[in-house]
């Protein structure tokens, strides 16, 4: 049956449905062999890593490991039994099943039956990327049937989680990296975990000594991931230079002028709604249908703005919206003019 619970339980990934499970829930780094390994969560990159790690562990234990793959959405009855049945030389078997979130009914029935009597020396890895399909199977595994473990690969949302991830990448290979270099790297690859991981690998492979700001600068200088809201934040805070640089970054990495204006409009609209309104942030949030953090944010943004400036800025936003939607010849110029005026707080 299930091994003793590990001391460090994954905090990032314990999704709502997995709470109260009777089996160990591990982070992707802690994956270990078990008759049933359920790899759940939406972050496909981490799931792939975890499964590869398991395969390497098993291969190291016994090089004669037999690896087979199954697709649960194209499953034909009997396949699992065929692959899991004992072979002549009794080599260990790893069965990797993908797309369990889209599995066929036959797969569901046969896997649940398999849980009652897992084959010896066989490791079944089930990759479930989220959703309600196959809930019965997940519940059976989580209740402890079959002696499984669950590896939770949740999305890394916060910057600190990404920093931890990158730091662990370097630590795994016993390399030192400065904190500021780590921060620069994470902000350059904020959108895609796979890109961040491959950037770490690149740095590990190409540089021999300690990884510093200079190293990151050399490989990834000037690369900034940005979006419309970051541009708006910089402009509203009065940092016009930064806002213009971010605007150019956003435009050249595929952002469109129209959503850019919409982002500015939504921020200024919240600020205007809250200007002159009194009360606690919770009360105001309820009154205007906003989240409390949005209220606090807007109140912070409002410092230094006058009513007239806000009015002029909103008027200019409407004009810019018309310009980027075809009334003007140069949408980018219209955006730049808008940023210039807004970072002067409409004065």
């Amino acid at each position, binding site marked *: 049956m299930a091994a003793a619970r590990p001391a460090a339980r994954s905090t990032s990934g314990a999704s709502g449905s997995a709470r109260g499970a009777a089996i160990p829930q591990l982070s992707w780094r802690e994956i270990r062999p078990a008759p049933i390994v359920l790899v759940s969560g939406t972050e496909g990159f981490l799931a792939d890593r975890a499964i590869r790690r398991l395969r390497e562990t098993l291969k190291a234990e016994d090089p004669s490991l037999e690896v087979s793959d199954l697709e649960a959405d194209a499953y034909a009855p009997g396949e699992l039994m065929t692959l899991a049945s004992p072979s002549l030389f009794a080599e260990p078997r790893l069965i990797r099943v993908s797309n369990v979130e889209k599995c066929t009914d036959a797969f569901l029935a046969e896997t649940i039956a398999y849980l009652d009597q897992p084959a010896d020396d066989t490791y079944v890895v089930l990759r479930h990327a989220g959703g309600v399909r196959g809930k019965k199977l997940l519940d059976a595994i989580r209740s402890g049937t079959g002696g499984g473990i669950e590896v939770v690969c949740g999305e890394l949302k916060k910057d600190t989680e990404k920093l931890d991830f990158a730091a662990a990448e370097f630590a795994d290979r016993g390399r030192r990296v400065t904190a500021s270099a780590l921060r620069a790297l994470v902000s350059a690859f904020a959108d895609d975990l796979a890109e961040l991981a491959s950037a770490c690998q690149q740095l590990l492979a190409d540089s021999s000594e300690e990884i510093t700001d200079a190293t990151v600068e050399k490989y990834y200088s000037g690369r900034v991931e940005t979006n419309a809201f970051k541009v708006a934040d910089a402009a509203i805070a009065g940092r016009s230079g930064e806002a213009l640089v971010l605007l150019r970054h956003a435009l050249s990495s595929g952002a469109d002028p129209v959503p850019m204006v919409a982002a500015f409009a939504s921020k200024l609209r919240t600020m205007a709604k809250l*200007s*002159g309104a009194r009360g606690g942030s919770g009360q105001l949030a309820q009154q205007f249908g906003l989240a409390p953090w949005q209220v606090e944010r807007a109140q912070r943004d409002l410092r230094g703005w006058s009513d007239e400036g806000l009015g002029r800025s*909103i*008027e200019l936003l*409407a004009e810019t919206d*018309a310009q980027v939607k*075809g009334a003007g010849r140069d949408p980018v110029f219209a955006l730049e003019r808008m940023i210039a005026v807004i970072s002067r707080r409409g004065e």
Partner: protein
Amino acid sequence: MSVWDELTGQAEAIAVFEAAAAGTIDSSMTHSWLVTGPPGSGRSNLAYAFATALLSKGPDDDEATARQVAARTHPDLGVLSTERVIISIDEVRHLVTSSQFSPSVGRYRVMVIEDADRMSERTSNVLLKALEEPPPRTVWILCAPSEADLIPTIRSRVRSVRLRVPGIDEVAELISRRDGVDLAIATRAAREAQSHIGMAHRLATNEDARARREQTLAIALGIRSVGDAVRAAATLLQIAGDDAKAITEERDAEERASTLRSLGIEPGGTIPPALRGQLKNLEEDQKRRATRSLRDGLDRIMVDLLSLYRDVLLLQLGAGIEPINLSITPELERARDQATPAQTLATLDAIATARRRIDGNVSPALALEAMLISAARKDPVR
């Protein structure tokens, strides 16, 4: 009862059409007509009355024909009216093809395009050949707010008949006669609708519509700061949205049910993948209609606000002309003291700008916010 009875205040235009339909030698009947006039002056009603007169075989046949025209089922009548923002080129091509058929029962085949101003230039060009040389017994009738809304090549191919804005008394008299409304209410409705017959009818017969209009004006007059303006814009958008939803929601559900029925799907049943495309088309059509409906609602609000600031300006200038919003005179007088005539004019300009921007696809919320910011009034200046 003649086909022209329901029309108000357009004696000159009616005389022209009546003579043309009668087919006397010097009646100057022609094959393509353009009816222009401000919204609510009864352009399309007049066009359909003319169509009825052309299609009818004689005075005895008038009533039956009028009923068929009203249901748009007359075999010799082709109609193009749209509930979307624009008329598509395919719709016009289809109409042009059907204009080539000979009339089957009447003297003429009549093609009516209700919103000819909603055609893009490319779409308008499809019409040119058909307008210039229609088959001998086909008559085209186009309707548009003004001649300037059509491209010059169409203008030169049609005979134009202009409608005038009917007087408030004429509209009030029509409403109270047709709908049995008290003359005082009808007069107020006609004045507040600025002689727009359809709007006046709605204001006179629908309590909600009256309340919404009053609320709109009160909101605009209550704006003191930018914050107020943005909150007011959200409220106005909500009002227009609710209004539009009330009109479209019920019809959307009905249309969906009837489509499902004609596709042979029981209510609540799953839709086979092969038929999903059809439902998707329907939903897209409904979405376009909702866009138009919301814009129309916003436009009504802006026309109401124009009337409000016009009244304020007239009071400020001491013009002594009767205000449109007679019922809220005390509020108008307070608004008069809160601003200079220049500020009021700026607000009127801002309303016109907002209408232009919404036509140019600017987000309605943003256009309304920018407009209402110029309507913010602080303390009395005098």
